[in-house]
Protein backbone atom coordinates (compact mmCIF):
# COMPACT_ATOMS: atom_id res chain seq x y z
CA UNK A 1 0.00 0.00 0.00
CA UNK A 2 1.44 3.35 -1.01
CA UNK A 3 0.80 5.62 1.96
CA UNK A 4 2.08 8.63 0.00
CA UNK A 5 -0.78 8.23 -2.45
CA UNK A 6 -3.26 7.67 0.38
CA UNK A 7 -1.98 10.69 2.32
CA UNK A 8 -2.32 12.88 -0.77
CA UNK A 9 -6.06 12.26 -0.65
CA UNK A 10 -6.30 13.89 2.79
CA UNK A 11 -5.95 17.69 2.51
CA UNK A 12 -5.06 18.12 6.19
CA UNK A 13 -1.59 16.72 5.52
CA UNK A 14 -0.80 19.72 3.35
CA UNK A 15 -0.83 21.90 6.47
CA UNK A 16 2.11 22.48 8.72
CA UNK A 17 1.62 21.98 12.44
CA UNK A 18 3.98 24.13 14.53
CA UNK A 19 6.02 24.53 11.35
CA UNK A 20 6.35 20.76 10.97
CA UNK A 21 4.76 18.18 8.77
CA UNK A 22 1.77 16.60 10.50
CA UNK A 23 2.32 13.12 11.91
CA UNK A 24 -1.21 12.16 12.86
CA UNK A 25 -1.28 9.30 15.38
CA UNK A 26 -4.58 10.01 17.11
CA UNK A 27 -6.79 7.82 14.96
CA UNK A 28 -8.42 5.95 17.83
CA UNK A 29 -9.73 9.33 18.91
CA UNK A 30 -10.82 10.45 15.47
CA UNK A 31 -9.55 10.07 11.93
CA UNK A 32 -8.85 12.67 9.25
CA UNK A 33 -11.15 13.08 6.25
CA UNK A 34 -10.34 12.45 2.60
CA UNK A 35 -11.14 15.19 0.07
CA UNK A 36 -13.89 13.01 -1.43
CA UNK A 37 -15.84 13.09 1.85
CA UNK A 38 -15.40 16.84 2.26
CA UNK A 39 -16.44 17.42 -1.35
CA UNK A 40 -19.46 15.17 -1.03
CA UNK A 41 -20.86 17.23 1.85
CA UNK A 42 -20.28 20.43 -0.10
CA UNK A 43 -21.89 18.97 -3.22
CA UNK A 44 -24.89 17.79 -1.25
CA UNK A 45 -25.49 21.23 0.26
CA UNK A 46 -24.82 22.93 -3.10
CA UNK A 47 -27.02 20.77 -5.31
CA UNK A 48 -29.16 18.25 -3.49
CA UNK A 49 -30.12 19.52 -0.07
CA UNK A 50 -33.56 19.40 1.40
CA UNK A 51 -35.01 17.77 4.46
CA UNK A 52 -35.57 14.08 3.94
CA UNK A 53 -38.55 11.81 4.24
CA UNK A 54 -41.16 14.52 4.44
CA UNK A 55 -41.11 16.59 1.30
CA UNK A 56 -42.84 15.76 -1.96
CA UNK A 57 -40.78 18.20 -3.99
CA UNK A 58 -37.90 17.05 -6.19
CA UNK A 59 -35.12 18.07 -3.83
CA UNK A 60 -36.83 16.25 -1.00
CA UNK A 61 -36.87 13.10 -3.11
CA UNK A 62 -33.21 13.48 -4.16
CA UNK A 63 -32.00 14.08 -0.62
CA UNK A 64 -34.04 11.15 0.70
CA UNK A 65 -32.62 8.89 -1.97
CA UNK A 66 -29.01 9.86 -1.22
CA UNK A 67 -29.62 9.32 2.50
CA UNK A 68 -31.27 5.94 2.06
CA UNK A 69 -28.62 4.83 -0.45
CA UNK A 70 -26.08 5.33 2.33
CA UNK A 71 -28.12 3.01 4.54
CA UNK A 72 -27.96 0.34 1.83
CA UNK A 73 -24.25 0.89 1.42
CA UNK A 74 -23.70 0.37 5.14
CA UNK A 75 -25.97 -2.64 5.22
CA UNK A 76 -23.82 -4.26 2.55
CA UNK A 77 -20.54 -3.09 4.09
CA UNK A 78 -21.28 -4.77 7.42
CA UNK A 79 -23.34 -7.55 5.85
CA UNK A 80 -26.49 -6.95 7.87
CA UNK A 81 -29.47 -9.05 6.87
CA UNK A 82 -31.75 -6.12 6.13
CA UNK A 83 -31.58 -2.33 5.76
CA UNK A 84 -34.08 -1.93 8.60
CA UNK A 85 -31.35 -3.08 10.95
CA UNK A 86 -29.27 0.06 10.30
CA UNK A 87 -30.16 3.03 12.51
CA UNK A 88 -28.47 6.41 12.26
CA UNK A 89 -27.53 8.04 15.54
CA UNK A 90 -25.43 11.08 16.32
CA UNK A 91 -22.51 8.90 17.43
CA UNK A 92 -21.67 5.47 18.80
CA UNK A 93 -22.32 6.77 22.29
CA UNK A 94 -25.91 7.50 21.36
CA UNK A 95 -26.18 4.07 19.74
CA UNK A 96 -25.21 2.39 23.03
CA UNK A 97 -27.46 4.70 25.03
CA UNK A 98 -30.33 3.77 22.73
CA UNK A 99 -29.87 0.08 23.49
CA UNK A 100 -29.25 0.59 27.20
CA UNK A 101 -32.35 2.74 27.51
CA UNK A 102 -34.80 0.74 25.42
CA UNK A 103 -33.60 -2.76 26.21
CA UNK A 104 -33.01 -1.78 29.83
CA UNK A 105 -36.49 -0.33 30.08
CA UNK A 106 -38.15 -3.46 28.82
CA UNK A 107 -35.96 -6.35 29.89
CA UNK A 108 -33.79 -5.36 32.85
CA UNK A 109 -35.24 -5.53 36.33
CA UNK A 110 -34.06 -5.32 39.91
CA UNK A 111 -31.20 -7.70 40.60
CA UNK A 112 -30.58 -8.46 36.92
CA UNK A 113 -26.98 -8.42 35.76
CA UNK A 114 -25.22 -6.58 32.97
CA UNK A 115 -21.85 -8.02 32.10
CA UNK A 116 -19.18 -5.67 30.78
CA UNK A 117 -15.37 -5.73 30.97
CA UNK A 118 -12.68 -3.64 32.62
CA UNK A 119 -11.55 -2.58 29.16
CA UNK A 120 -14.71 -0.65 28.35
CA UNK A 121 -14.76 2.95 27.21
CA UNK A 122 -17.00 5.13 29.38
CA UNK A 123 -19.49 5.04 26.49
CA UNK A 124 -20.05 1.36 27.19
CA UNK A 125 -20.27 1.72 30.94
CA UNK A 126 -22.04 4.96 31.83
CA UNK A 127 -25.26 4.16 29.86
CA UNK A 128 -25.47 0.84 31.77
CA UNK A 129 -24.81 2.69 35.00
CA UNK A 130 -27.96 4.71 34.35
CA UNK A 131 -29.93 1.47 34.02
CA UNK A 132 -28.25 0.15 37.17
CA UNK A 133 -29.46 3.26 39.02
CA UNK A 134 -32.93 3.27 37.53
CA UNK A 135 -33.71 -0.41 37.76
CA UNK A 136 -31.54 -1.57 40.64
CA UNK A 137 -29.52 -3.77 38.30
CA UNK A 138 -25.97 -5.02 38.88
CA UNK A 139 -22.98 -4.42 36.62
CA UNK A 140 -20.30 -7.10 36.62
CA UNK A 141 -16.84 -6.38 35.23
CA UNK A 142 -14.93 -9.19 33.54
CA UNK A 143 -11.35 -8.84 34.65
CA UNK A 144 -8.56 -7.72 32.35
CA UNK A 145 -5.27 -9.64 32.69
CA UNK A 146 -1.72 -8.27 32.78
CA UNK A 147 -1.56 -8.51 28.99
CA UNK A 148 -4.40 -6.03 28.71
CA UNK A 149 -6.88 -8.54 27.36
CA UNK A 150 -9.98 -10.19 28.77
CA UNK A 151 -9.93 -13.95 28.73
CA UNK A 152 -13.19 -15.52 27.60
CA UNK A 153 -13.11 -17.70 30.74
CA UNK A 154 -13.43 -14.55 32.84
CA UNK A 155 -16.64 -13.78 31.00
CA UNK A 156 -17.84 -17.37 31.24
CA UNK A 157 -17.46 -17.45 35.01
CA UNK A 158 -19.48 -14.26 35.47
CA UNK A 159 -22.46 -15.40 33.44
CA UNK A 160 -25.40 -16.37 35.62
CA UNK A 161 -29.10 -16.92 35.12
CA UNK A 162 -29.50 -13.24 36.03
CA UNK A 163 -27.31 -12.02 33.15
CA UNK A 164 -29.50 -9.98 30.84
CA UNK A 165 -26.89 -8.35 28.63
CA UNK A 166 -23.24 -8.77 27.68
CA UNK A 167 -21.77 -5.50 26.44
CA UNK A 168 -18.15 -5.64 25.29
CA UNK A 169 -15.69 -3.75 23.19
CA UNK A 170 -14.50 -5.23 19.90
CA UNK A 171 -11.05 -3.69 20.23
CA UNK A 172 -9.72 -1.93 23.33
CA UNK A 173 -8.94 1.72 22.70
CA UNK A 174 -6.13 1.53 25.27
CA UNK A 175 -4.39 -1.84 25.06
CA UNK A 176 -5.43 -2.56 21.48
CA UNK A 177 -6.66 -6.03 22.52
CA UNK A 178 -9.00 -7.56 19.96
CA UNK A 179 -11.69 -9.44 21.85
CA UNK A 180 -12.78 -12.93 20.80
CA UNK A 181 -16.20 -11.51 19.95
CA UNK A 182 -17.39 -14.43 17.84
CA UNK A 183 -16.68 -16.89 20.65
CA UNK A 184 -18.39 -14.63 23.17
CA UNK A 185 -21.46 -14.30 20.95
CA UNK A 186 -21.61 -18.09 20.52
CA UNK A 187 -21.28 -18.60 24.26
CA UNK A 188 -23.98 -16.03 24.99
CA UNK A 189 -26.42 -17.32 22.42
CA UNK A 190 -26.27 -20.78 23.98
CA UNK A 191 -27.61 -19.11 27.08
CA UNK A 192 -29.91 -16.79 25.15
CA UNK A 193 -28.17 -13.63 26.40
CA UNK A 194 -27.99 -10.74 23.94
CA UNK A 195 -24.59 -9.25 23.12
CA UNK A 196 -23.82 -5.64 22.33
CA UNK A 197 -20.45 -4.90 20.77
CA UNK A 198 -18.88 -1.47 20.99
CA UNK A 199 -17.36 -1.42 17.53
CA UNK A 200 -15.82 2.06 17.61
CA UNK A 201 -12.31 0.71 17.21
CA UNK A 202 -13.37 -2.46 15.41
CA UNK A 203 -15.24 -1.09 12.42
CA UNK A 204 -12.46 1.16 11.07
CA UNK A 205 -9.77 -1.49 11.29
CA UNK A 206 -11.27 -4.97 11.07
CA UNK A 207 -13.48 -6.87 8.69
CA UNK A 208 -16.93 -6.91 10.19
CA UNK A 209 -19.75 -9.15 9.10
CA UNK A 210 -22.93 -8.98 11.18
CA UNK A 211 -24.46 -12.21 9.89
CA UNK A 212 -21.30 -14.19 10.49
CA UNK A 213 -20.69 -12.59 13.90
CA UNK A 214 -24.29 -13.00 14.99
CA UNK A 215 -24.25 -10.30 17.67
CA UNK A 216 -27.48 -8.59 18.65
CA UNK A 217 -26.20 -5.00 18.61
CA UNK A 218 -23.10 -3.35 17.14
CA UNK A 219 -22.26 0.34 17.61
CA UNK A 220 -20.19 2.21 15.02
CA UNK A 221 -18.51 5.59 15.12
CA UNK A 222 -18.34 7.09 11.60
CA UNK A 223 -15.84 9.85 12.34
CA UNK A 224 -13.28 7.21 13.24
CA UNK A 225 -13.82 5.70 9.77
CA UNK A 226 -12.61 8.74 7.82
CA UNK A 227 -16.16 10.02 7.89
CA UNK A 228 -17.88 13.16 9.21
CA UNK A 229 -18.57 13.82 12.87
CA UNK A 230 -22.19 13.65 14.00
CA UNK A 231 -22.88 10.21 12.57
CA UNK A 232 -23.04 6.95 14.43
CA UNK A 233 -24.65 3.69 13.45
CA UNK A 234 -26.50 1.20 15.53
CA UNK A 235 -26.78 -2.20 13.96
CA UNK A 236 -29.50 -4.15 15.73
CA UNK A 237 -31.06 -7.50 14.90
CA UNK A 238 -34.53 -6.95 13.56
CA UNK A 239 -36.11 -9.16 16.23
CA UNK A 240 -35.06 -6.63 18.85
CA UNK A 241 -36.15 -3.58 16.94
CA UNK A 242 -39.63 -5.08 16.61
CA UNK A 243 -40.06 -5.48 20.35
CA UNK A 244 -38.07 -2.65 21.92
CA UNK A 245 -39.83 0.63 22.72
CA UNK A 246 -38.91 3.87 20.91
CA UNK A 247 -35.99 5.91 22.26
CA UNK A 248 -36.44 9.62 21.57
CA UNK A 249 -39.81 11.06 20.65
CA UNK A 250 -40.48 13.68 18.01
CA UNK A 251 -41.23 14.24 14.38
CA UNK A 252 -40.61 11.53 11.84
CA UNK A 253 -40.75 8.62 14.27
CA UNK A 254 -44.54 8.46 14.55
CA UNK A 255 -47.22 6.53 12.69
CA UNK A 256 -50.36 8.14 14.02
CA UNK A 257 -50.74 10.88 16.61
CA UNK A 258 -54.01 11.38 18.50
CA UNK A 259 -54.71 13.32 21.66
CA UNK A 260 -55.07 10.16 23.65
CA UNK A 261 -52.77 7.78 21.79
CA UNK A 262 -49.67 7.63 19.61
CA UNK A 263 -48.52 4.75 17.49
CA UNK A 264 -45.09 4.21 16.02
CA UNK A 265 -43.76 2.90 12.73
CA UNK A 266 -41.21 0.13 12.29
CA UNK A 267 -37.45 0.42 12.45
CA UNK A 268 -35.45 2.35 11.36
CA UNK A 269 -38.02 5.17 11.30
CA UNK A 270 -39.07 4.42 14.87
CA UNK A 271 -35.57 5.25 16.09
CA UNK A 272 -34.78 8.28 13.96
CA UNK A 273 -36.63 11.18 15.59
CA UNK A 274 -36.35 14.70 14.24
CA UNK A 275 -34.27 16.01 11.36
CA UNK A 276 -31.12 13.96 11.10
CA UNK A 277 -27.55 14.88 10.15
CA UNK A 278 -28.42 14.42 6.50
CA UNK A 279 -25.34 15.90 4.83
CA UNK A 280 -22.99 14.03 7.14
CA UNK A 281 -24.72 10.72 6.49
CA UNK A 282 -24.45 11.31 2.74
CA UNK A 283 -20.81 12.32 3.24
CA UNK A 284 -20.22 9.05 5.06
CA UNK A 285 -21.14 7.13 1.92
CA UNK A 286 -17.86 8.41 0.45
CA UNK A 287 -15.94 7.13 3.50
CA UNK A 288 -17.30 3.65 2.89
CA UNK A 289 -16.38 3.90 -0.78
CA UNK A 290 -12.91 5.06 0.21
CA UNK A 291 -12.40 2.14 2.62
CA UNK A 292 -13.75 -0.31 0.04
CA UNK A 293 -11.45 1.09 -2.64
CA UNK A 294 -8.40 0.62 -0.44
CA UNK A 295 -9.79 -2.73 0.69
CA UNK A 296 -10.30 -3.76 4.30
CA UNK A 297 -7.83 -6.66 3.91
CA UNK A 298 -5.17 -4.23 2.68
CA UNK A 299 -5.95 -1.90 5.57
CA UNK A 300 -5.62 -4.75 8.06
CA UNK A 301 -2.31 -5.99 6.73
CA UNK A 302 -0.90 -2.47 6.39
CA UNK A 303 -1.86 -1.49 9.92
CA UNK A 304 -0.44 -4.74 11.26
CA UNK A 305 2.87 -3.97 9.58
CA UNK A 306 2.92 -0.43 11.01
CA UNK A 307 1.98 -1.73 14.46
CA UNK A 308 4.72 -4.35 14.50
CA UNK A 309 7.29 -1.84 13.27
CA UNK A 310 6.09 0.61 15.93
CA UNK A 311 6.23 -1.92 18.77
CA UNK A 312 9.72 -3.02 17.78
CA UNK A 313 11.01 0.54 17.43
CA UNK A 314 9.45 1.91 20.62
CA UNK A 315 10.50 -1.10 22.69
CA UNK A 316 14.13 -0.18 21.95
CA UNK A 317 13.74 2.89 24.16
CA UNK A 318 14.29 1.57 27.68
CA UNK A 319 12.47 4.45 29.37
CA UNK A 320 9.23 3.56 27.57
CA UNK A 321 6.75 1.10 29.00
CA UNK A 322 4.18 -0.19 26.54
CA UNK A 323 0.79 -0.93 28.07
CA UNK A 324 -0.43 -4.45 27.52
CA UNK A 325 0.79 -7.24 25.32
CA UNK A 326 -2.35 -8.80 23.87
CA UNK A 327 -2.07 -11.78 21.51
CA UNK A 328 -4.37 -10.13 19.00
CA UNK A 329 -3.66 -6.45 18.85
CA UNK A 330 -5.18 -3.66 16.81
CA UNK A 331 -3.11 -0.70 15.68
CA UNK A 332 -2.86 1.00 19.06
CA UNK A 333 0.19 1.53 21.27
CA UNK A 334 -0.43 3.10 24.66
CA UNK A 335 2.65 3.83 26.69
CA UNK A 336 4.21 5.71 29.56
CA UNK A 337 7.70 7.17 29.85
CA UNK A 338 9.47 6.93 33.17
CA UNK A 339 9.44 10.26 34.95
CA UNK A 340 7.36 12.11 32.35
CA UNK A 341 3.63 12.67 32.64
CA UNK A 342 1.64 11.78 29.48
CA UNK A 343 0.44 15.38 29.10
CA UNK A 344 4.00 16.61 28.99
CA UNK A 345 4.78 13.92 26.41
CA UNK A 346 1.87 15.04 24.25
CA UNK A 347 2.95 18.69 24.41
CA UNK A 348 6.56 17.91 23.48
CA UNK A 349 5.45 15.63 20.62
CA UNK A 350 3.06 18.29 19.38
CA UNK A 351 5.97 20.69 18.92
CA UNK A 352 7.26 18.17 16.37
CA UNK A 353 3.88 18.01 14.65
CA UNK A 354 3.14 14.61 16.20
CA UNK A 355 -0.49 14.30 17.35
CA UNK A 356 -1.12 11.66 20.00
CA UNK A 357 -3.62 11.41 22.84
CA UNK A 358 -2.77 11.73 26.52
CA UNK A 359 -5.08 11.04 29.42
CA UNK A 360 -7.23 8.13 30.50
CA UNK A 361 -8.85 7.86 27.04
CA UNK A 362 -12.28 7.60 28.68
CA UNK A 363 -11.16 4.38 30.39
CA UNK A 364 -10.75 5.31 34.03
CA UNK A 365 -11.61 1.80 35.26
CA UNK A 366 -8.80 0.30 33.19
CA UNK A 367 -6.26 2.97 34.18
CA UNK A 368 -7.08 2.43 37.82
CA UNK A 369 -6.51 -1.28 37.31
CA UNK A 370 -3.18 -0.52 35.67
CA UNK A 371 -2.33 1.73 38.60
CA UNK A 372 -1.66 4.82 36.49
CA UNK A 373 -3.73 8.02 36.24
CA UNK A 374 -3.04 8.48 32.54
CA UNK A 375 -1.14 7.19 29.54
CA UNK A 376 0.05 8.39 26.15
CA UNK A 377 -1.43 6.70 23.10
CA UNK A 378 -0.32 6.46 19.50
CA UNK A 379 -2.95 4.94 17.22
CA UNK A 380 -2.54 4.27 13.53
CA UNK A 381 -4.70 4.47 10.46
CA UNK A 382 -4.80 3.97 6.76
CA UNK A 383 -2.37 6.83 5.95
CA UNK A 384 0.33 6.14 8.52
CA UNK A 385 3.75 5.02 7.34
CA UNK A 386 6.94 3.67 8.87
CA UNK A 387 8.35 7.18 8.54
CA UNK A 388 5.60 8.35 10.92
CA UNK A 389 6.84 5.80 13.45
CA UNK A 390 10.40 7.05 13.00
CA UNK A 391 9.24 10.62 13.70
CA UNK A 392 7.35 9.38 16.77
CA UNK A 393 10.35 7.48 18.03
CA UNK A 394 12.68 10.50 17.57
CA UNK A 395 10.17 12.74 19.27
CA UNK A 396 9.96 10.37 22.24
CA UNK A 397 13.75 10.63 22.52
CA UNK A 398 13.30 14.39 22.61
CA UNK A 399 11.06 13.94 25.67
CA UNK A 400 13.90 12.06 27.35
CA UNK A 401 16.23 14.91 26.47
CA UNK A 402 13.95 17.70 27.72
CA UNK A 403 13.36 15.88 30.99
CA UNK A 404 16.87 14.46 31.32
CA UNK A 405 15.52 10.92 31.72
Amino acid at each position, binding site marked *: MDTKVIKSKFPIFKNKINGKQLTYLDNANSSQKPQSVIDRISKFYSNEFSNIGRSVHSLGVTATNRFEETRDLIKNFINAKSREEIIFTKNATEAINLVAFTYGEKFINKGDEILITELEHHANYVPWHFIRKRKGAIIKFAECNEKGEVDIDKIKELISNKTKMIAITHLSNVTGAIMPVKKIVDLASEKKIPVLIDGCQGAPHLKIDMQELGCDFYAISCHKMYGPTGVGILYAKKKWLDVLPPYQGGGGMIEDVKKNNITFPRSPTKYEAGTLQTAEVVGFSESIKFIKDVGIKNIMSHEKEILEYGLEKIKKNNSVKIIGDPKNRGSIISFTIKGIHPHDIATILDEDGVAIRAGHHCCQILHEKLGIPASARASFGIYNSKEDIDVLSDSIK*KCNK*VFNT
Partner: protein
Amino acid sequence: MDIKELYQEIILDHGKNPRNKNKCEGFNKNAKGHNPLCGDKIHVYLKIDKAKNVEDISFEGEGCAISIASASIMTQIIKGKEFNVAKKILEQFLNMLKEGSKLSINSLSDDENMTMMSLSGVKRFPMRVKCATLAWHTFINAAEGQKETVNTEK
Protein backbone atom coordinates in the same frame (compact mmCIF):
# COMPACT_ATOMS: atom_id res chain seq x y z
CA MET B 1 9.47 28.93 20.27
CA ASP B 2 11.59 26.18 21.63
CA ILE B 3 9.89 23.63 23.87
CA LYS B 4 12.56 24.45 26.47
CA GLU B 5 10.86 27.82 26.97
CA LEU B 6 7.92 25.90 28.39
CA TYR B 7 9.97 23.31 30.19
CA GLN B 8 12.52 25.63 31.76
CA GLU B 9 15.02 24.18 34.20
CA ILE B 10 13.22 25.81 37.09
CA ILE B 11 9.93 24.10 36.13
CA LEU B 12 11.59 20.74 35.62
CA ASP B 13 13.24 21.14 39.00
CA HIS B 14 9.98 21.96 40.79
CA GLY B 15 8.23 19.18 38.82
CA LYS B 16 10.76 16.57 39.85
CA ASN B 17 11.47 17.82 43.36
CA PRO B 18 8.32 19.60 44.44
CA ARG B 19 8.60 21.80 47.55
CA ASN B 20 6.06 21.53 50.37
CA LYS B 21 4.58 18.34 49.00
CA ASN B 22 3.13 16.97 52.22
CA LYS B 23 0.31 17.53 54.66
CA CYS B 24 1.55 20.54 56.64
CA GLU B 25 1.30 20.32 60.39
CA GLY B 26 -1.61 22.06 62.04
CA PHE B 27 -3.44 22.92 58.85
CA ASN B 28 -6.87 24.44 59.47
CA LYS B 29 -8.16 24.64 55.90
CA ASN B 30 -7.95 22.34 52.93
CA ALA B 31 -9.53 21.78 49.53
CA LYS B 32 -9.31 19.38 46.62
CA GLY B 33 -8.91 20.11 42.92
CA HIS B 34 -9.47 17.84 39.95
CA ASN B 35 -8.92 18.11 36.22
CA PRO B 36 -11.15 15.33 34.91
CA LEU B 37 -9.79 15.66 31.36
CA CYS B 38 -6.27 14.62 32.29
CA GLY B 39 -6.78 13.10 35.70
CA ASP B 40 -4.68 15.63 37.62
CA LYS B 41 -5.62 15.63 41.28
CA ILE B 42 -4.47 17.99 43.96
CA HIS B 43 -5.13 18.54 47.65
CA VAL B 44 -4.06 21.87 49.17
CA TYR B 45 -3.54 22.31 52.94
CA LEU B 46 -3.44 25.72 54.60
CA LYS B 47 -2.68 27.10 58.00
CA ILE B 48 -4.17 30.57 58.19
CA ASP B 49 -4.01 32.62 61.37
CA LYS B 50 -6.65 35.00 62.71
CA ALA B 51 -5.05 37.98 60.98
CA LYS B 52 -5.42 36.06 57.71
CA ASN B 53 -1.75 35.39 57.20
CA VAL B 54 -0.87 32.20 55.38
CA GLU B 55 1.40 30.70 57.99
CA ASP B 56 1.89 27.46 56.15
CA ILE B 57 0.78 25.91 52.90
CA SER B 58 1.42 22.55 51.30
CA PHE B 59 -0.06 20.18 48.77
CA GLU B 60 -0.39 16.55 47.81
CA GLY B 61 -1.32 15.15 44.47
CA GLU B 62 -0.44 13.81 41.10
CA GLY B 63 -0.16 15.46 37.75
CA CYS B 64 2.01 16.62 34.89
CA ALA B 65 5.22 18.58 35.29
CA ILE B 66 3.40 21.87 34.74
CA SER B 67 0.73 21.28 37.37
CA ILE B 68 3.14 19.92 40.00
CA ALA B 69 5.67 22.69 39.35
CA SER B 70 2.97 25.32 39.53
CA ALA B 71 1.68 23.90 42.83
CA SER B 72 5.18 23.75 44.24
CA ILE B 73 5.99 27.32 43.15
CA MET B 74 2.68 28.52 44.54
CA THR B 75 3.39 27.12 48.00
CA GLN B 76 6.81 28.75 47.99
CA ILE B 77 5.46 32.14 46.98
CA ILE B 78 2.32 32.19 49.14
CA LYS B 79 3.85 30.93 52.37
CA GLY B 80 4.09 33.77 54.86
CA LYS B 81 1.99 36.20 52.82
CA GLU B 82 -1.26 37.84 53.80
CA PHE B 83 -4.28 36.24 52.18
CA ASN B 84 -5.21 39.49 50.41
CA VAL B 85 -1.74 39.74 48.90
CA ALA B 86 -1.93 36.10 47.90
CA LYS B 87 -5.21 36.80 46.14
CA LYS B 88 -3.60 39.66 44.23
CA ILE B 89 -0.70 37.41 43.22
CA LEU B 90 -3.18 34.85 41.93
CA GLU B 91 -5.01 37.49 39.92
CA GLN B 92 -1.82 38.64 38.27
CA PHE B 93 -0.67 35.08 37.73
CA LEU B 94 -3.90 34.32 35.86
CA ASN B 95 -3.49 37.47 33.78
CA MET B 96 0.04 36.44 32.94
CA LEU B 97 -1.19 33.07 31.66
CA LYS B 98 -4.21 34.43 29.84
CA GLU B 99 -3.13 37.87 28.60
CA GLY B 100 0.63 37.58 28.80
CA SER B 101 0.83 40.57 31.15
CA LYS B 102 3.80 41.13 33.45
CA LEU B 103 3.67 40.76 37.22
CA SER B 104 3.72 43.97 39.22
CA ILE B 105 3.54 43.14 42.90
CA ASN B 106 5.77 45.07 45.26
CA SER B 107 5.82 42.38 47.89
CA LEU B 108 7.42 39.83 45.55
CA SER B 109 11.20 39.63 45.64
CA ASP B 110 13.12 39.54 42.34
CA ASP B 111 13.71 35.89 42.91
CA GLU B 112 10.01 35.17 43.50
CA ASN B 113 9.13 37.24 40.47
CA MET B 114 11.53 35.24 38.31
CA THR B 115 10.23 31.94 39.65
CA MET B 116 6.65 32.85 38.82
CA MET B 117 7.62 34.20 35.42
CA SER B 118 9.07 30.79 34.57
CA LEU B 119 5.47 29.65 34.12
CA SER B 120 4.68 32.38 31.58
CA GLY B 121 5.57 30.03 28.70
CA VAL B 122 2.35 28.13 29.43
CA LYS B 123 0.37 30.94 27.79
CA ARG B 124 1.29 29.63 24.35
CA PHE B 125 -0.24 26.26 25.22
CA PRO B 126 -3.94 26.92 25.87
CA MET B 127 -4.63 23.26 26.65
CA ARG B 128 -2.09 23.42 29.46
CA VAL B 129 -3.27 26.62 31.18
CA LYS B 130 -5.64 24.52 33.31
CA CYS B 131 -2.70 22.43 34.50
CA ALA B 132 -0.93 25.56 35.69
CA THR B 133 -3.93 27.13 37.41
CA LEU B 134 -5.46 24.09 39.16
CA ALA B 135 -3.41 24.44 42.37
CA TRP B 136 -4.05 28.17 42.60
CA HIS B 137 -7.81 27.86 42.28
CA THR B 138 -7.72 25.06 44.83
CA PHE B 139 -5.77 27.32 47.22
CA ILE B 140 -8.49 30.00 46.97
CA ASN B 141 -11.20 27.41 47.63
CA ALA B 142 -9.32 26.18 50.68
CA ALA B 143 -8.81 29.69 52.03
CA GLU B 144 -12.43 30.62 51.51
CA GLY B 145 -13.68 27.40 53.01
CA GLN B 146 -15.38 26.13 49.85
CA LYS B 147 -16.36 22.51 50.32
CA GLU B 148 -16.73 21.65 46.67
CA THR B 149 -13.79 20.16 44.75
CA VAL B 150 -12.31 22.55 42.20
CA ASN B 151 -13.15 21.12 38.81
CA THR B 152 -11.44 22.61 35.77
CA GLU B 153 -14.38 21.56 33.61
CA LYS B 154 -17.09 23.27 35.62
